[in-house]
């Protein structure tokens, strides 16, 4: 009951100094809104990263030809993996399946008078098991397509849309680098790769056709995808693949790998490191702006304390204890910061949705609300305690005599 009486004193005081209250609330709103937007954006980004890692596959290792640190797939021109490499990898314990494919980036594709570019991969029939990605309509590349070097293709949804719009592409012939291929199927939608490229801007053709007719790479394989039984054993399998490939490629201990492995761990590291700097910067802004709000609060409250010395002196004279004065000022700060927090979170969510409309991934969960509540309470208490203590420590006789 007593606390309620004191709280009503604080509320009344706030209502009597509206301009001051609005300024403090505004300062907190800016801080908490920024925090909310940044939480929503980073959450959205993380969700997207997780989705991309999921797209890569948690149980997959991709073996690329060529060493170095280049990201993205190796193309057929740098292919140096051999059939023996693939069959040795197949024999590693824990490996479920291996599929080899030839990669060409940005191949010119033509249908009638329409033109686009797309990745073209030469694949084996088990590619669909290794990627868990079949066709949404029509057929996939079969073993007999590979045996007969068939000129058939399965096209991704981006390519399908570019070339055929909403029409059914199956049975149509398209030109891939001026070689005619019949469309036999459309790939299931997959979304973005871990580095942000479009997994749907892809056309797959038989591996043999790609090697011999399109990419002129009959001996070597550019890329292989290895699926393991147990995702937790993936690093061990990756290590074994490295050993086998180094041995097969006769690499001396001092020589660098002439191949690269992508594992889910590595992919997630890579994706995270690209967003790390940005994240750090965002979080810095997210933490600093509420702090600035807190400093504004402290400033205004300190001004209020010196403006209201007589009031404080009078309250002390009629019986307010030091703790009552502290409570009154702290309750004022807290009420203002919590109001600022509530408006800030609402405002922040609106801004986050606007970001979302412009294509940024966002994720709004319970977190912004809890973070805003905690932050605004902490700011209210942390930046409010000093002015409150200052008010309480005023000498009552002295404060009363202030003009």
């Amino acid at each position, binding site marked *: 009951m007593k606390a309620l009486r004191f709280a009503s004193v604080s509320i009344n005081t706030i209502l009597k100094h509206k301009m001051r209250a609005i300024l403090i609330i505004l300062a907190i709103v800016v801080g908490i809104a920024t925090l909310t937007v940044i939480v929503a954006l980073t959450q959205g980004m993380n969700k997207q990263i997780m989705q991309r890692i999921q797209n890569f596959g948690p149980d997959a290792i991709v073996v690329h030809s060529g060493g170095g640190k280049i990201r993205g797939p190796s193309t057929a021109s740098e292919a140096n993996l051999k059939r023996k490499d693939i069959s040795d990898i197949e024999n590693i314990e824990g490996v479920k399946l291996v599929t080899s494919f030839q990669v060409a980036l940005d191949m010119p594709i033509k249908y009638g008078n329409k033109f686009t570019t797309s990745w073209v991969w030469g694949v084996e029939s088990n590619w669909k098991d290794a990627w868990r990605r079949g066709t949404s309509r029509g057929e996939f590349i079969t073993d007999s397509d590979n045996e007969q070097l068939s000129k058939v293709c399965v096209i991704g949804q981006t390519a399908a849309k570019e070339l055929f719009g909403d029409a059914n592409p199956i049975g149509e012939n398209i030109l891939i680098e001026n070689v005619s291929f019949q469309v036999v199927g459309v790939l299931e939608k997959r979304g973005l790769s871990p580095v942000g490229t479009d997994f749907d801007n892809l056309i797959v053709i038989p591996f043999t056709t790609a090697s011999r007719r399109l990419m002129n790479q009959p001996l070597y394989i550019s890329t292989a995808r290895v699926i393991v039984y147990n995702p937790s054993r993936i690093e061990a399998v990756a290590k074994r693949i490295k050993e086998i490939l180094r041995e097969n490629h006769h690499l001396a201990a001092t020589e660098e790998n002439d191949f690269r492995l992508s594992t889910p761990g590595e992919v997630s590291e890579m994706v995270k490191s690209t967003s790390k700097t940005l994240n750090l910067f965002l979080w810095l802004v997210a933490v600093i702006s509420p702090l600035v709000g807190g400093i504004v609060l402290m400033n205004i409250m300190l001004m209020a304390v010196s403006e209201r010395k007589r009031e404080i002196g009078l309250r*002390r004279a009629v019986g307010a204890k030091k703790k009552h004065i502290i409570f009154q000022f702290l309750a004022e700060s807290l009420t203002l910061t919590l109001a600022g927090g509530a408006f800030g979170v609402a405002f922040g969510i609106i801004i986050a949705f606007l970001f979302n409309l412009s294509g940024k991934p966002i994720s709004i969960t319970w977190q912004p609300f809890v973070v805003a509540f905690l932050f605004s309470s902490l700011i209210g208490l942390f930046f409010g305690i000093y002015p409150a203590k200052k008010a309480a420590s005023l000498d009552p006789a002295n404060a009363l005599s202030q003009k």
Partner: protein
Amino acid sequence: MIEFKDVTKSFQSGSIRTDVLNGLTFKVEKGEFAAIMAPSGTGKTTLLNILGCLMKVSSGSYLFEGIDIETLNDDNLSEIRNKEMGFVFQTFNLLERTSALDNVLLPLIYADTYPADAKQRAVKLLESVGLGQRIHYKPSELSGGQQQRVAIARALVNEPSIILADEPTGNLDSASAKEIMEIFKSLHNQGSTIVVVTHDLSVARQAGRIIFLKNGRVEKTEVLS
């Protein structure tokens, strides 16, 4: 009720020491209306601050109802001010932008228990000082005399055992000053203990006894009725 024994008070400002009270000794009995008379700038307000437990003595002792004030901590002093004392200041010291009624209720906010009849009590007090029609007026809407009457109502709301007034008519015209002193007299007649600190002999003459101060100690006392 009040007993000052050899009280001194000095202020240090840099290297300069100012002795305001120099061995002040006097008593005020329960039910008395006493005026403490001193020229301006000779420590009247300091004395009232000490009487009101807002300031401590430098040496000597101040007994209030037999309790040595020096032995009490800050919270105890707040409680005494809240329960036993009512203050009336020269400059009224009302809360701005706050109604007369809420100003009168202010001391009760800090009481241990908020009386159920607080509001009726405040209204009644405002009526008794002639402000029954203006309980929702803010200080800026009231004259000086009216503001001081709100302050008196505030001083009475916690039913204090003593009313301490510091130059209560100092900021008022003579008609309002007279009204205020009439209120004090009638309160005294109803049994209240009142101490008025003033430099104005005509104000002091309304009291039952005048204690004249000079150089920080009692010069003489004069019993009037």
